[in-house]
């Protein structure tokens, strides 16, 4: 019996090793390497002049206005899109759950934004809001050059994000909705509870874990936003996000030292957000993770 267990354990490790190794080699090693690079003044245009500078790169990033402005921009986009997505996602999930006809059509339609390439969605909406090619101004009777001003550019970016990712949020919430027992809702209805009461007193509390997981995933995802901003404004009009700053420093300006400091700081920010989420919601998410699988 014991040796059987040992061989089962060995097989387990053997089967998981390729996946664990790949994940470690492609993420853990590079992030360690990023930290190492961030301690050097290292510009790929002058590779010979690589010098150890300690934490100087962090000091210059953390005292630069560009970094903090991009952080504010990222938070504006993250909070703006995730809040709307949660409300809209709930509406979508309820429609999918309750649709009286064409339920399959609705669920299939919702997958369209999910399947579309983000760059394509960003361009489609960019052209739609564009004053010379687009239909949005004509539709709203406006004469607005959306992407040339900061706040209207944010509106377009957030709108695009919402359009693209609300379906994913809705599907996660729908999975939570189907866990709410119909009997309970029917009983509440018989007892005279209104639709609003049933939603806030029964559905919402039972869905708390699903909501938290959806919020966590979408917040971290929105924080990494790159494609939409790059395609729609390239960071112009003061819409640069932290990922765009990282890309510009690393790939455009080839400043690996400074860029790696930005990378490490973004990584740390993501960890902080994740920890805050898990802390703030206490054991709720923990329990969910623990139960699996």
């Amino acid at each position, binding site marked *: 019996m014991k040796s059987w*267990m040992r061989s*089962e*354990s060995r097989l*387990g490790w053997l*089967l*998981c090793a*390729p*996946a*664990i190794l*790949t*994940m*470690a080699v*492609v*993420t853990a090693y*590079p992030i360690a*390497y*990023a930290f190492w*690079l961030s301690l050097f003044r290292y510009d790929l245009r002058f590779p010979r002049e690589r010098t150890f500078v300690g934490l100087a790169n962090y000091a210059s990033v953390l005292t630069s206005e560009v970094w903090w402005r991009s952080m504010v921009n990222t938070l504006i986009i993250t909070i703006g899109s995730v809040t709307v997505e949660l409300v809209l996602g709930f*509406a979508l999930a*309820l*429609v999918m759950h*309750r*649709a*009286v006809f*064409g339920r*399959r*059509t609705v669920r299939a339609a919702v*997958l*369209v*934004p999910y*399947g*579309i*390439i*983000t*760059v394509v*969605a960003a*361009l*489609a909406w960019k*052209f739609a809001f564009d004053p010379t*090619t*687009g*239909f949005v101004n*004509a539709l709203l009777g406006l004469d607005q050059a959306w992407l040339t001003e900061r706040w209207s550019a944010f509106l377009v970016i957030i709108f695009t994000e919402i359009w693209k990712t609300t379906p*994913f949020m809705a*599907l996660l919430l729908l*999975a*939570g909705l189907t866990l709410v027992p119909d009997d309970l809702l029917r009983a509440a209805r018989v007892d005279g509870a209104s639709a609003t009461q049933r939603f806030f007193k029964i559905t919402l509390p039972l869905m708390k874990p699903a909501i938290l*997981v959806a919020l966590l995933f979408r917040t*971290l995802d929105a924080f990494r936003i790159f494609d939409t901003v*790059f395609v729609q404004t390239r960071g112009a009009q003061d819409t640069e996000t932290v990922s765009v700053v990282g*890309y510009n420093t690393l*790939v455009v300006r080839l400043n*690996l030292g400074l*860029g790696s400091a930005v*990378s490490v700081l973004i*990584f740390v920010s*993501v960890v902080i957000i994740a920890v805050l989420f898990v802390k703030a919601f206490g054991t709720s998410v923990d329990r969910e993770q623990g*139960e*699996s*699988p």
Partner: protein
Amino acid sequence: MNAEGSSNERVLWGFGSVAVVVYALIPVVWILSLSLKPSADLNDNRFFPRAVSFDHYRTIFQDIQFPAALWNSVGIATLSSLLAVTLGMFAAYAIVRLRFPGRRLVLGAALSIAIFPPIAIIGPLFDLWRAVGLFDTWAGLVLPYMTFTLPLAIWSLSAFFREIPWDLEKAARMDGATPFQAFSRVIAPLAAPGVFTTSILVFIFAWNDFLFAASLTSTNNARTVPAAIAFFTGSSRFELPTGSIAAASVVVTVPIIMLVLVFQRRIVAGLTAGAVKG
């Protein structure tokens, strides 16, 4: 539940359904109509084209850039999903079927990769890939794609694997099959639908990525469609080749939409299983 509710509610939900379909399809129809407008009509601010022309499609396929990018995208996304799903299958089987201490480690690693910001490793990969000759190659993109899709693959495969009647495996083991034989001969065929669905999800991820493609490629050698479209240049720096971009967008969007529509039910199951139970 269908038969319940007052007629008012039914009208409301029906109206909602129509609204959802319109919401999802507006940009698709818009980019399609843009791609069919003759160049002269591109700036007419109308949602539907007045006349239809296929000039933009002809333009993108006559150029060498777009067909090359299309080939790169198909190849890279296919390879990434094959590899991610193979590794994911091994790991998911171990997680679902075997008692061993590494289960939590695998799930923890998967969770941390799922929240990992890709921009954080762009610099090191850029540097490393240039040093080892992976920069601007297929392998240089396949590696990050398979890594970042492994969590999705492992979760969704574990969810599908849990639904399999594993007694059949026990029977095979009793008939003298080794654990590995039981896996490959009995369970793998049963797991095929879940594996297929997971492949689609991974494929969509790799097909969609822009950050790695924009950072780790520089020529038609490995540049994929999203990067090619984003870096399309027109006659002047300030003028976007709107028609060509729209046509290219339609070409890469239609197959994905078909895929998603045909396998709608399974994709929903795969996407949500991971997040809710994982």
